[in-house]
């Protein structure tokens, strides 16, 4: 008798949970007109411009929501969302790489965009005849084995490496997918704290080579991009899977996140926002032929 009662009770509970769930989801979609609250996002500086733009549009739609977006780096973003300091942590890398396994487990991953990294050179290098490098050549250049552009068919000029600090997400992506995991020659490269300064250094220094996300190259004719193994770094080539140097941009929430957080992230990944995403130089996650590397 007791057992039957407990089974019946648990069945009832399960039913209650199911209906609870059901009503919850319908609730969030129907009452999304009156979203309110605060969203605070922090982390990856590569994702920040896109998040800023999305925040602006989202706040126009829902004036009661206030959103703040800060940079600070992927590690910082993950730490702060894990602490509860911010509601959304933005990161270039998976949470498991920067947090303890226990902390990472509490976070929910949302893959909001794809970011493509391109090798860039000073214009005189391209004018000197270098518009394509093989992976082999790229590795030799960044590890300091090749030190003059004439060895790869360019002008007789020393190669100047302009890179990012070892903890940078952009550098991690470039090292992994463009250099096949070979570490850069740190004692020969000029590191820059952010991609804006990196662009200026590559633009101003003859013989310079570096790498930035495509989002920094929108409407920028001051530096030249280089193809890798004959594949141009473009969004189309990233979508098709031909170009290999790209990373997923993550937005993490603690647990499921608040209703407002989820609505914001959903908006960032929506078809409405996809056009803006591409205009800013980011890849739309849903257009990728494969999200696996």
């Amino acid at each position, binding site marked *: 008798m007791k057992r039957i009662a407990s089974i019946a009770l648990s069945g009832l509970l399960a039913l209650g949970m199911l209906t609870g769930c059901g009503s919850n989801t319908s609730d969030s979609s129907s009452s999304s007109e009156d979203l309110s609250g605060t969203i605070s996002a922090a982390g990856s500086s590569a994702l920040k411009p896109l998040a800023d733009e999305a925040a602006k549009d989202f706040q126009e739609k829902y004036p009661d929501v206030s959103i703040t977006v800060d940079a600070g780096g992927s590690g910082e973003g993950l730490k702060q969302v894990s602490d509860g300091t911010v509601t959304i942590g933005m990161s270039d890398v998976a949470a498991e790489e920067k947090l303890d396994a226990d902390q990472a487990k509490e976070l929910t991953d949302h893959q909001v965009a794809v970011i493509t990294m391109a090798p860039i050179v000073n214009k005189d290098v391209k004018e000197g005849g270098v518009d394509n490098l093989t992976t082999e050549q790229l590795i030799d250049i960044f590890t300091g084995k090749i030190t003059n552009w004439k060895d790869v068919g360019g002008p007789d000029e020393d190669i100047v490496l302009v890179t990012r600090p070892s*903890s940078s997400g952009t550098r991690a992506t470039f090292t992994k997918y463009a250099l096949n995991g070979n570490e850069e020659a740190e004692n020969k490269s*000029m590191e820059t704290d952010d991609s804006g300064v990196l662009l200026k250094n590559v633009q101003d220094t003859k013989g310079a080579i570096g790498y930035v996300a495509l989002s920094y190259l929108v409407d920028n004719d001051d530096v030249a991009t280089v193809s890798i193994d004959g594949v141009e770094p473009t969004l189309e080539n990233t979508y098709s899977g031909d170009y290999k140097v790209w990373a997923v941009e993550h937005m993490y929430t603690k647990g499921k996140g608040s209703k407002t957080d989820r609505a914001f992230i959903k908006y960032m990944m929506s078809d409405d926002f996809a056009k803006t995403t591409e205009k800013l130089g980011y890849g739309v996650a849903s257009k990728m032929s494969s999200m696996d590397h």
Partner: protein
Amino acid sequence: MFKKEYAWRGIATIGGLIVIGLTLTIGVFLAYRGSATFFQFHHTLGEFLGSADWNPVDSAAGGGTVGALIFIVGSLVTCGLALLIATPLSLGAAVFMTQISPRIGEKFFRPVVQIFAGIPSVVYGWVGLSVLVPFMRVAFHQQVGQSILVAAIVLAVMIFPTITSMTADALTAVPKTNRDGAYGLGSTRWQTIYRVIIPAAKSGIITAIIMGLARAFGEALAVAMVIGQTTALPTSIFSTSKTITTEVAAQMGNAMEGGELKAALWTLSFLLFLISLFMIWLIHRVNAPKKED
């Protein structure tokens, strides 16, 4: 009747205690976080201070190297050069505005110097990067314009107002009777300045120089933009290198919480704290009333 007396004394005491408490807390916190390098990751103090092999791993497993000699040398060399450039200029300016032409000095020179002090460091950095770096490239036929020399020049400009205004205050504080006495004995103006006034203001001048040095040591942003951050010991004043502050600023945001890199960066921060403590101790030494003579 003494209510007010006690109330104000209480407020003043609380203010003082907060300042002392804050300084102590920061020191203890930095020491605690920084000690992980030695206790958790088992590096020796000798390795940290004496080795130029910097390659901490960005994970909690550790196993990298934490030789910070590059940053220590980088900081010492840039700040030393900056002092060499700024001190004579500042002394000259201070003598001019207090002794040679006090009217122009007070009405025009001092406000200008104060404006200098108020310019944010990012402006100095950006001007350095946009004007000084290209100039160096042309003037010295360097392929890379960034160098320790440029960083030192930018720093010199930044600490110039600190040293100048403090030196000027020290010079004005010399009693008028000293000057009158010197003139009365038949000294020329120059003899009065360098035989009487400057020796009398000596401890104030040294304090000014140390304060300038302290500011130079702590500056990260402007230096980071023009030093061309390379993880290598400088071989000449045209080399690119790194300082303690630039490395901390560049890596802190992305480093993994609890990882070896983060611990090493905390240790670097603690080192900076100790250096500024040492400088303050020096100031006290200089200003302490002499027991003998």
